[in-house]
């Protein structure tokens, strides 16, 4: 286990370094942040002064070495736009994203698993086919369109749910969260649904395939012979056995939900990290972009690790192997 962890960590460090180099030079090549940030009224002397203050007058390799030097001391720089530490800026946007991703995850399981199991159970009947056809929409409809459509239906026409923003928030363990207030939760429903739709289709398909396979297994036949109800067979016995692939995929998808909910967050003006990223790219806020992507890499590494650990809980066979290794 320890060797496994160490190997993972070494790999991660290399990924981080490679990412840092690529993003730093990539953003550098796009353009000069001062060109967009400074007031058009500024005099040429002021432009030069601002360039010097941010260090943009230095050759790029010196800027990079300075950045690396500071990064090694744990300082990823200050946002050019906000004048605040990039990391604390990202952290301040993080709770909104995490709660949205979490609710999205719950929605996708709540929608996807029952539909998938049912579709697997009724695989050759019209119900199963209808669900499968429906899931194609979930895959193929673009996120922003789904978001706009949900806004149009539930906010503009029916006026049931708010269209935008975060609503009331409440402080829980030092984090400001919407999910625990009624108003905040209402604000979360549409964006979380948008985020969940694709994943739910994915889960539906996985659950269907898993169910179909499990239904042919001996233990299901045995359970049927024993006279257990079909519901009990599906919910207790089949469900347990199909969860492994679902958890694996959802684990990885959670990472992308956290890191790249950009489109959904933009459509719903949800003040999460994805929106910060897109705003930072538009203003070439290099420290924030680099810090953000480095944190993303870390998030993915951590989630992968957690997924591996959850396996051992769900699958006794892995647990046995893990303890003897």
């Amino acid at each position, binding site marked *: 286990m320890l060797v496994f962890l160490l190997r993972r960590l070494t790999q991660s460090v290399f990924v981080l370094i490679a990412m840092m180099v690529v993003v730093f030079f990539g953003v550098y090549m796009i353009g*000069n942040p001062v060109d967009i940030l400074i007031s058009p009224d500024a005099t040429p002397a002021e432009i030069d002064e601002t360039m010097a203050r941010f260090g943009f007058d230095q050759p790029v390799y010196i800027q990079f070495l300075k950045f690396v030097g500071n990064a090694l001391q744990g300082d990823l720089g200050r946002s050019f736009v906000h004048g605040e530490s990039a990391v604390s800026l990202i952290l301040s946007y993080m709770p909104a994203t995490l709660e949205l991703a979490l609710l999205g995850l719950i929605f996708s399981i709540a929608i996807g698993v029952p539909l998938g199991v049912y579709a697997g159970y009724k695989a050759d009947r019209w119900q199963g086919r209808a669900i499968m056809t429906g899931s194609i929409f979930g895959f193929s409809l673009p996120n922003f369109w789904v978001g706009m459509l949900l806004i149009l239906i539930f906010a503009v026409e029916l*006026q049931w749910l708010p269209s935008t923003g975060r609503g009331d928030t409440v402080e829980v363990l030092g984090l400001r969260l919407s999910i625990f207030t009624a108003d905040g939760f209402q604000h979360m429903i549409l964006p979380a649904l948008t985020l969940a739709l694709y994943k739910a289709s994915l889960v539906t398909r996985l659950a269907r395939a898993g169910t179909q396979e499990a239904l042919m297994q001996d233990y299901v036949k045995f359970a049927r012979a024993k006279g257990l109800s079909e519901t009990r067979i599906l919910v207790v016995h089949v469900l347990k056995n199909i969860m492994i692939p679902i958890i694996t995929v959802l684990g990885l998808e959670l990472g992308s939900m956290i890191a790249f909910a950009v489109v959904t967050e933009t459509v719903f003006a949800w003040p999460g990290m994805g929106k910060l990223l897109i705003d930072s790219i538009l203003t070439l806020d290099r420290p924030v972009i680099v810090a953000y992507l480095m944190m993303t890499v870390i998030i993915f590494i951590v989630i992968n690790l957690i997924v591996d650990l959850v396996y051992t809980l769900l699958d006794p066979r892995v647990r046995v192997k893990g303890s003897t290794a």
Partner: protein
Amino acid sequence: MTSPVIRRVAILAMAAALPALPLAAQELRIGLASEPSSADPHFHNLGPNNQLRRNVFESLVGTDEAQQLTPLLAESWEPVSETSWQFNLRSDVTFSDGSPFDAHDVVYTVCRIPGVPDSPSLFTTYTGGITGMEVVDPHTLIVHSAESYPLMPTEFSTFGIISARANGVDGSALTFSTEGCGDDMPVPATQAFNDGTAAIGTGPFLLESFRRGEGIELVRNPDYWGEAAPWERVTMLPLTSEGPRVAALIAGDVDFVENPPLQDLERLRADDDLRVVQGISNRVIYIHLDHAQVPSPMITGTDGANPLQDIRVREALTIAVNRDAIVERIMGGVAVSAGELLPPGMFGAHVEGDLPPRGFDAERAQALLAEAGYPNGFGITIGTPNDRYINDAQVAQAVAQMWARIGVDTEIDASTASTFFSRRNAFEFSAYLAGWGAGTGEMSSPLRALLATRNSDLGLGGTNRGQYSNPEMDEILLEALRTVDDDAREGLLRQASRMAMDDYAIIPLHYEVTPWAMRASIDYSPRADQYTLPYAIRPVE
């Protein structure tokens, strides 16, 4: 059971007993098109920040809808010598912490401005010309400059005043110097404005919270010296994508939105519950031409010559553009064809009809090209941003087609603003489309930035990326910048503008018109500076 009649009477009686404004009308929710980067009034000289600043921190001089100067914290001002202005300050103003406002606060503010750490765009643009500040008495301030400085009152309208006392400074002990006012002068950190502790101003609103991405909350300043704001509470939500912003208005999640997209205006106008207002802005959309580089980048078919140096070619390109068609078809009528760089009615612009937009004449354009030695035209590329101005890339596309009609083979190089401006500033284009908003509201602003010969020492030609140079016009412009007398200055600015237009130095296309959309129960007067100012948004009687 009470009868319906009695109930109705009772409701009427209750309504009569209520104050003029119903409770619901006391709260206003606004959808912003772009978000301020900070609540610190001196951190970032940028439209969204300056718009927020005006609600909380007032300046000495105000500006009205048409950008004319109005008294604000200063009741009046006048030049007292060739190089100094006297500001007479109001004596009945207090900051929101209760401390009185006086001339020392102005000195303190000007002292703080150059030293804001990590600022991406300082306000020194407006304070750099100040060489001395003299507090005659607490409500009389004389400001000196090295040279005559007619724009000083205008520039004093651009930055908000913060309190010396609230930041632990004894104002009367402070002396202004261009070298700084003492390194040990305590100044609030930008963070202190964002979290509200230093957000102490004289404005009609108090900053209750500033949360990035989530919104800004303002509450009415109960002790405001002027007319009380019509709203008890204002929430400003950053809704930066167009579609969702409009959806939020229609869904009733906000009461007012900035910049609804052109394609939605018709639908919004058709809705009886909504109101759309629009007004001409101080922003001109133009195409600048490369006057200096030989050969000029991305020009083909001229054997290395730069055809844009020939006035006949520039005239041909100017009259080949059908401005009215662009305004009608690309801008949906929400723009005004431009004949110079500032719309009629603003200071230094010609009176309506005096310098009209150049008429469209493709035949004459072709003849001019032939005369200039390009009977078969040449090839050129227009650089344009595609996410900065209203329909910017489409406008460039239309111009390209119009130029192609007279034989100039035109391509479009559209990119996102961050890339475009860096490339433009590196002189990578022979022709580029961009916009200029006259922050000061007078003609000197576009002339100085876009057409004056580039000169770092004089601060001229900062955005003259076509490198146009006309010493004669420079002379008149500099003369105008020294002339304190308004009438004389306006005459000089008009003269300079006409001279540049007659030289076809730049191709003005149109002035942007700014739309706002809101519930029918409120109203707003459009502003040339494109600002959304909640205290000027009024409930309809």
